[in-house]
């Protein structure tokens, strides 16, 4: 029986690294406050009914039945898609340069699926009835079926399996050290002892998992785009570009969040030795390619709608460009186009500063959130084919509170993982030797 590889002296257990971090404690404290606010807001929604939100019936009610929650759900599904895609690609294409961010991407994926699932639940007036009936009656012909079965169950579960199996080796290393979390490390390790056979088996399982995950991801994420793109009676949504644009923007926002999280880990855990500028440059180039494609899709869609769109399409486009939604639209466009310019400059000058990439990533994520909102809402308030007047939708404080609570929950989940297990794979002795 082989024994577990000893932990390298430079690497500390996660709780030892973060135990001294005041920033981590502060962030977790703020997240707890945010979570409490979210719970209070949701309790208000549950007891007062959906009328306490800003959502109203489409058409006769002059509002939107899908609002901030659905926009948040789509954003989170996109992040999840990109997270697990990066993790799978690292394995399939043997992208060793990106290996240090592999687990960060996996964690992000799992957390984003959980938050996306919760965003659906809070959007339902009767959550329990909705959940039971979905599993009872959902039709395979409906894109919703694919959203729930393939997206939430499929890559939610697949991401969790991927994360769990990948964490076993590090948990086995940490389980050898006495401490408060030793029981957890033993549980996660599940008897892993890092023998050559186990490594080979893990590599083989991870490879086939990745092979299974990638096509699932493309189908599932496109299905989420089809929820909107196949609705022929809803101008603004009905478009062949919805699915590919959804997947591309998902990639942009997900890669951006991986960059932000990697920058935070680099700072909080002092891991500049592993999270090198080269890793960030790689991610920056990936984001540049995806962002370029998305901006192209956006331009094509705008030209089509303004040049040859139907009357209803023209109304929605006018609302976006010069009407009610113009401030959000132009801000989102700026948050996508300016980063594109900065990334192009970085590529030309070959200067990929981590600070710039982090700022760009924050901007593109704000832009992506705005775009998700604009995909969901305007077609409901300005896209009815029946002769209703223009509607309006403004998220209520309750909705902001719930979304804040969801974000806080995500931060707590990531923070808890960081405390329990390494977010960057521990290096084996021979790997440390190679790096030196």
């Amino acid at each position, binding site marked *: *029986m*082989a024994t*577990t590889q000893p932990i390298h002296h430079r690497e500390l257990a996660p709780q030892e690294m973060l135990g001294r971090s005041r920033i981590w404690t502060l962030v977790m404290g703020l997240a707890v406050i945010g979570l409490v606010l979210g719970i209070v807001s949701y309790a208000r929604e549950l007891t007062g009914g959906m009328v306490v939100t800003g959502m109203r019936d489409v058409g006769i009610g002059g509002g939107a039945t899908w609002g901030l929650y659905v926009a948040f759900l789509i954003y989170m599904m996109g992040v999840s898609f990109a997270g697990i895609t990066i993790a799978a690609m690292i394995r399939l294409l043997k992208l060793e340069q990106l290996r240090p961010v592999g687990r960060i991407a996996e964690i992000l994926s799992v957390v984003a699926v959980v938050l996306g699932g919760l965003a659906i639940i809070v959007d339902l007036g009767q959550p329990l009835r909705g959940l039971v009936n*979905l*599993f*009872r*009656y*959902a*039709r*395979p*012909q409906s894109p919703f*079926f694919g959203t*729930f*079965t*393939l997206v939430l*169950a*499929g890559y939610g*579960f*697949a991401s969790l*399996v991927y994360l*769990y*199996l990948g964490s*076993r080796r590090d948990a*086995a290393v940490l*389980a050898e050290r006495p401490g408060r979390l030793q029981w957890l490390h*033993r549980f996660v*390790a*599940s*008897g*892993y*002892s890092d*023998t050559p*056979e*186990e490594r080979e*088996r*893990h590599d*083989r*399982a*991870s490879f*086939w*998992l990745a092979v*299974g995950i990638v096509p699932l991801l493309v189908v599932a994420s496109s299905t989420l785009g089809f929820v909107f793109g196949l609705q022929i009676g809803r101008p603004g949504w009905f478009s062949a570009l919805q699915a590919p644009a959804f997947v591309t923007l998902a990639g942009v926002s997900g890669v951006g969040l991986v960059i932000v999280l990697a920058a935070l880990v680099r700072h909080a855990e002092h891991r500049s030795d592993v999270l090198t500028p080269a890793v960030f440059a790689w991610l920056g180039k990936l984001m540049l390619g995806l962002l370029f494609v998305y901006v192209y899709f956006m331009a094509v869609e705008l030209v089509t709608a303004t040049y040859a769109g139907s009357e209803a399409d023209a109304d929605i486009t006018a609302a976006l460009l010069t009407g009610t939604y113009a401030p959000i639209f132009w801000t989102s466009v700026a948050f996508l186009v300016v980063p594109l310019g900065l990334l192009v400059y970085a590529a030309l000058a070959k200067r990929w500063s981590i600070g710039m990439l982090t700022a760009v990533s924050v901007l593109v994520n704000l832009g992506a959130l705005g775009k998700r909102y604009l995909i969901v809402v305007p077609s409901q308030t300005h896209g009815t084919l029946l002769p209703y007047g223009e509607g309006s939708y403004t998220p209520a404080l309750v909705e902001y509170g719930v979304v804040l609570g969801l974000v806080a929950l995500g931060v707590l989940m990531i923070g808890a993982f960081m405390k329990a297990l390494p977010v960057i794979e521990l290096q084996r002795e021979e790997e440390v030797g190679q790096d030196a």
Partner: protein
Amino acid sequence: MRRTWTLTLIVSGLALMAISYFGLAAPWGADSVANSNPRMPFAPLVFVVGVMLLFGSAIVYELYGRAPRGGGEE
């Protein structure tokens, strides 16, 4: 046995997905209200179980026959 169990789970998962999708859920191509319900209630749940079995097979493949703590296999 490891391979047998893993393959069993993979095949079972795929079979459950296919059967629930094409055989138990609402029929394809039928758009009348009478055919809008699934042929078997909770067919979507069967599909989800199939997906979980499929990906759960990776856990079985890695953990099958493990020793309780830190030991080798079988």
